[in-house]
């Protein structure tokens, strides 16, 4: 395919990565690659992994993923699986077979699993990390995750890829003393993990979201052991240019665990040489009822507009109620070929869960197409110009959300506090149902609560611990499904 394909051959474990093309022989530049994991479909890079929640892509059952998803892997957070660790062995640890995580989550076999200790985005913990453990947030509250335990989980669960434990302080700005410890702890933890020699898992070493000088010892150490790790996981893409430009480190695939807010931020990271992404804005656009609608570098159909184009369409808008158009003219996803805007607008407006499922299918398809076009552009050697075009043609930020999100419940969502009012209004306002607080079953018995809660969804960041604790206690004191 590319003229200057450079294969680095098989790396330890069952993962291989070859850089197919870099525009110039320089460490930080957009590059093409191929990630091969035995038993899974090869992943052409740059590419992205979907962000899972409790092992599933929100709204999508695994059969739908199998039939309609073009993405190659799912990011799973260990903290979503081990709430029972405080009282015994988490069930996932007893799943029989070679790939317990895959088996447990019923993930079709060709998809890749990426295990990280924490969700993306993660909820900040009330207590800091220690020399041997980090703080995590499970469905039953905060827990301590020792590196030793994390190592055992990885060894047993056999995810295809796993990110080593990193001493990342969520929600607080670390002081100088703390920063000094971060590299040391992370290095120790990585050493312990590698010593356990997880057989079926490729280990990505975390790169800390701090200045490269502050973690220079750790980075040099990574260079020394580069043949024993399988990739680098960046919490902050800005550290990428400061990675030692050695052959050993350059040949490793790079995973971004940062939270790009828009496609242009993804492009920027690709220009730095990032290979694989996790992209929270896909799920958040879906929940907001926004159908992403952008292509790289410019729209497939000529646009008259000279003003920057929006990156998505708010599907709550009543203007779509009779539109038989697809969500995006150029999209060939299931939602766009089998359905139309009118249906999705109806489903959102009627609070039917299928609305979010269809948007989720589409939004993932949009990103798959985006990355595919990026790879074509890099192969053609036009990535830089194309990125400039993209920046001119499209708006730089996601459209504002106007509609309500899906009726959600969950420990990772917060309440806005008592003043906000009820966010999940009943779809049928002043009808009798639900007024007395519950739906009735076929016998007319009132069922307690619904599947879906009345809490709003949002970010936990920057919220007081007290409130967080109260909210998750509220959420978990409920017995409803």
């Amino acid at each position, binding site marked *: 395919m590319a003229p200057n394909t450079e294969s680095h051959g098989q790396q330890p474990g069952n993962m291989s990565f070859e850089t197919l093309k870099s525009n110039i022989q320089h460490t930080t530049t957009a590059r093409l690659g191929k990630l091969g994991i035995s038993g899974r479909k090869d992943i052409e890079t740059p590419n992205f992994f979907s962000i899972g929640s409790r092992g599933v892509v929100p709204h999508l059952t695994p059969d739908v993923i199998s039939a309609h998803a073009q993405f190659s892997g799912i990011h799973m957070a260990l903290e979503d699986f081990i709430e029972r660790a405080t009282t015994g062995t988490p069930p996932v640890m007893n799943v029989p077979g070679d790939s317990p995580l895959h088996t447990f989550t019923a993930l079709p076999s060709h998809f890749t699993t990426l295990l990280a200790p924490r969700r993306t985005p993660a909820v900040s913990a009330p207590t800091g990390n220690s020399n041997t453990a980090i703080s995590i947030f499970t469905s039953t509250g905060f827990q301590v995750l020792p590196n030793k335990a994390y190592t055992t989980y990885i060894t047993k669960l056999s995810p295809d890829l796993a990110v080593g434990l990193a001493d990342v302080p969520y929600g607080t700005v670390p002081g100088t003393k703390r920063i000094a410890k971060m590299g040391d702890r992370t290095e120790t933890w990585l050493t312990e993990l590698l010593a356990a020699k997880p057989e079926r898992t490729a280990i990505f070493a975390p790169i800390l979201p701090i200045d490269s000088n502050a973690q220079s010892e750790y980075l040099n150490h990574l260079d020394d052991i580069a043949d024993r790790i399988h990739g680098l996981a960046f919490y902050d893409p800005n550290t990428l240019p400061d990675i030692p430009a050695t052959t050993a480190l350059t040949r490793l695939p790079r995973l971004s665990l940062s939270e790009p807010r828009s496609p242009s931020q993804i492009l920027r990271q690709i220009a730095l040489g990032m290979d694989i992404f996790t992209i929270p804005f896909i799920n958040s656009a879906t929940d907001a009822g926004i159908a992403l609608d952008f292509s790289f570098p410019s729209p497939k159909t000529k646009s008259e507009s000279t003003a920057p184009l929006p990156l998505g369409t708010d599907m709550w808008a009543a203007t779509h109620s009779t539109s038989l158009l697809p969500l995006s003219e150029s999209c060939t996803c299931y939602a766009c070929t089998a359905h139309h805007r009118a249906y999705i607008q109806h489903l959102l407006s009627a609070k039917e869960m299928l609305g979010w499922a269809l948007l989720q299918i589409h939004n993932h398809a949009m990103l798959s197409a985006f990355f595919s076009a990026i790879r074509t552009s890099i192969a053609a050697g036009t990535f830089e110009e194309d990125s400039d075009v993209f920046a001119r043609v499209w708006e730089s930020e996601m459209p504002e959300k106007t509609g309500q999100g899906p009726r959600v419940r969950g420990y990772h969502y917060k309440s806005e506090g008592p003043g906000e009012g009820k966010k999940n209004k009943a779809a049928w306002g002043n009808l009798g149902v639900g007024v007395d607080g519950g739906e009735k079953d076929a016998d007319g018995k009132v*069922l307690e609560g619904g599947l879906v809660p009345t809490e709003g969804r949002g970010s936990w960041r920057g919220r007081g611990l007290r409130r967080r604790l109260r909210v998750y206690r509220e959420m978990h004191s409920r017995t409803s499904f």
Partner: protein
Amino acid sequence: MASESFTPVSMPSALRFDLLARCSTTKARAANLTLPHGPVQLPLFMPVATQASLKGLTPEQLEATGCRLCLNNTYHLGLKPGQEVLDKIGGAHKLQGWKHNILTDSGGFQMVSLLKLAQITEQGVRFLSPHDGTPMLLTPEHSINLQNTIGSDIIMQLDDVLVTTSPDHARMREAMLRSVRWLDRCIAAHANPTTQNLFCIIQGGLDLEMRAECCREMVARDTPGIAIGGLSGGEAKADYCRVVNTCTSLLPEMKPRYVMGIGYPEDLVVSVALGADMFDCVWPTRTARFGNAITKYGMLNMRHAKYASDFGPVEEGCGCVCCRKGEGGLNVTRAFVHHLAAKETVGAHLLTMHNVWYQLELMRNVRKAILEDRYPEFLKQFFKDLHAGDKSMYPDWAVEALKTVGVDLME
């Protein structure tokens, strides 16, 4: 048994009913019903996609359960997306991308049960708009007109529904007679009799005389299919069975018989034995949202802690996409559903897939047993499984009802 077929002549019809077999003991029948959007096999359970969507499943996933006829609710579609939008889009099939059949109710029942302020007059159902509180009126003509716009394959007459347990005999009789008069107005208003099938709805509460009178009146109107309405409203199961049994004996053999609002597995198998063909109920999909899996051994609540480490399928041997192993199956475990329950909607979607499959598969097996003339044995096995062989647990109403059609579960 020889296949017989019958196409009603006096009123145009858009269906064909082929009776394939009658059980030699009970009143159960197996038939093929050919509707505008393809054939369906009776007896049949119809899942309810109230607002043109079935609880998070894609039409493709619903199709994978074997469903070829589902319900939409006229009242809900009338509000959202509304008749104007439905008209512009070209009906409910086009709205939801569903290639198969749709049945809609009249909207009247939903209105009476959902709206506290609904009032019934000879003109129709008076209610306050849920949008802005303005007084509105749903007449038989409006209901049919709306269902014509929806374009459903089976449409239902507007009827005057009272709870069967109402003690007011005079009001019950008024409702029954009014339902007959409204049927005439529905027939007159029906614009698409050659593409949509209007079903009448037998009323009359628990009074068998009144039910019989209603059957005579409505059968004379010769609609393509016949529903038995006003049940599943909290009446005793024994009373329910008497009504169904009485009505099916008075209904023409060559028309489909639909008992509205019925969905518990034991209700289905008994009702089939009493001669009914079609059923619908929100229960299988609604209960999935509360973590309940329907199995032949009864209902299991996946939220229970005992399933946290249960790596068996939701139901052993189940052929649904969720439970099935191998090609096209997900091999989802109870532990995984437990892990998702109440935290990710995917957990509910998985159980919805399973429950809908369970109901449809139950009816496929019922049909097979009727075709092979072993329905009595099927019934015995069904109750044995459901109650772990403990006959003292068998519900009296089912035992009694089945006795009336020649099956003794206790023998």
